[in-house]
């Protein structure tokens, strides 16, 4: 085997995390981006810039603040407790929540810009053909903004795979639970185990390519859609 069992475990965990975060953000970010792009109030779109603010903080610092908020004395921690939910720090769910917050702009910004360029006409046509707004979203707006979705998915997925500052703080580096591959590579480098680090890094790249290329292949397949006469 090229990698230690721990590294394999970390890799699988990474894929699980990145997939969970990307899918969750797709579900959450799409309506948000839609609202930001199409709300008639002139400054709504500017609000969109605010979702990018968490990015401005260094990951581990953001992680630290999240740890405070999610801890037993933090707002979120108390809320979770009041709702009889498990505490988030040092759990996979905590990682998901933290990564979502940090990767949110990578999902929202490209989608927002794609939705802004869409225009009303396609949706109007869909409505005259009996499509409800939701139906029209899926059958018209989504295919027509596919390049934007691809950009959003690629950025979110790749960023979640590579991010480890926030993850480290919230996750506590627990093997099999919160120790993702990015942390493992980092640990290898810190321990001066350069060979192990390079192998894991190479395999992370490979996996990411394997995940991203099919997404893109699908897009290439439909490339002509985005061309106008």
């Amino acid at each position, binding site marked *: 085997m090229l990698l230690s069992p721990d590294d394999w475990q970390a890799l699988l965990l990474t894929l699980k995390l990145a997939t969970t975060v990307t899918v969750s953000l797709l579900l959450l970010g799409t309506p948000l981006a839609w609202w930001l792009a199409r709300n008639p109030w002139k400054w709504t779109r500017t609000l969109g810039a605010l979702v990018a603010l968490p990015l401005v903080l260094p990951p581990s610092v953001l992680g*630290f603040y999240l740890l405070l908020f999610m801890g037993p004395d933090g707002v979120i921690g108390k809320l979770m407790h009041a709702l009889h939910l498990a505490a988030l*720090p*040092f759990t996979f769910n905590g990682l998901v929540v933290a990564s979502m917050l940090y990767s949110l702009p990578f999902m929202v910004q490209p989608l927002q810009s794609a939705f802004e360029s869409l225009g009303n006409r396609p949706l109007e046509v869909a409505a005259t053909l009996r499509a409800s707004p939701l139906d029209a979203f899926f059958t018209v707006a989504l295919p027509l903004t596919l390049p934007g979705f691809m950009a959003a998915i690629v950025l979110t997925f790749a960023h979640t795979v590579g991010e480890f500052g926030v993850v480290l703080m919230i996750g*506590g580096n627990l093997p099999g639970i919160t120790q993702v591959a990015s942390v493992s590579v980092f*640990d290898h*480098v*810190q*321990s001066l185990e350069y060979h192990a680090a390079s192998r894991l890094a190479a395999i992370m790249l490979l996996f990411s390519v394997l995940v991203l290329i099919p997404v893109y292949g699908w897009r290439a397949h439909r490339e002509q859609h985005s061309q106008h006469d």
Partner: protein
Amino acid sequence: AADLKFAMADIIQDFKHAHPDATINTVYGSSGNFYTQITQGAPYDVFFSADVRYPKRLEQAGKTASPVVPYAFGRLVLWSNSIDASKMTLASLTNPAIQHIAVANPKHAPYGQRAVEALHAAGVWSQVAPKLVYGENISQTTEFVQSGNAQVGLIALSLAVSPKLASQGKYWLIPDTLHSPMEQAYVLTDHAKGNPLAQQFVTYLASPAGQAIFVKYGFTLPDKQ
């Protein structure tokens, strides 16, 4: 090394008293990073590490301008800001009320490695291992405890006695018989060649005034070992 931060701040202050014209910049970070950076020509003159192995590796790589000099031994404590740690021992960590115990990453942080050794030596490893959460370094380990997410942490004595933490919580000193000695060392790098200030600084460290500051922050001096 983050455990040195507070002691070093005092030392530099004193040193500047003696050498008013000297400008000294300190950079704190992980030994692994510094090792890589120095091998790639980083403009650092003195490299302090909580783990003597990193300066030694640098010496092997031929990037040093002096022998590796041990300056202190670090000590490990149990620390908490929510429970009275001074009344605890390693055995109390098995208490089910304690859900998470913060330690530094044993893969590369010396405090983490010694913490694991101590837990083994105390015979509580198998019970507490599932409760451990790993900070990347000793600062993060402390943050886990400070934020209340871990009830107790195994951190550096130098941090526990520092002005930042002394008022916040109490500690119990882990007997140094439970782990191998944590030898800390420094080395002058290639870059220090032709910089007399670097030599002056390390000379000051060995002076009684310098040594007193190490002691104040809970370090054991090499000759006391």
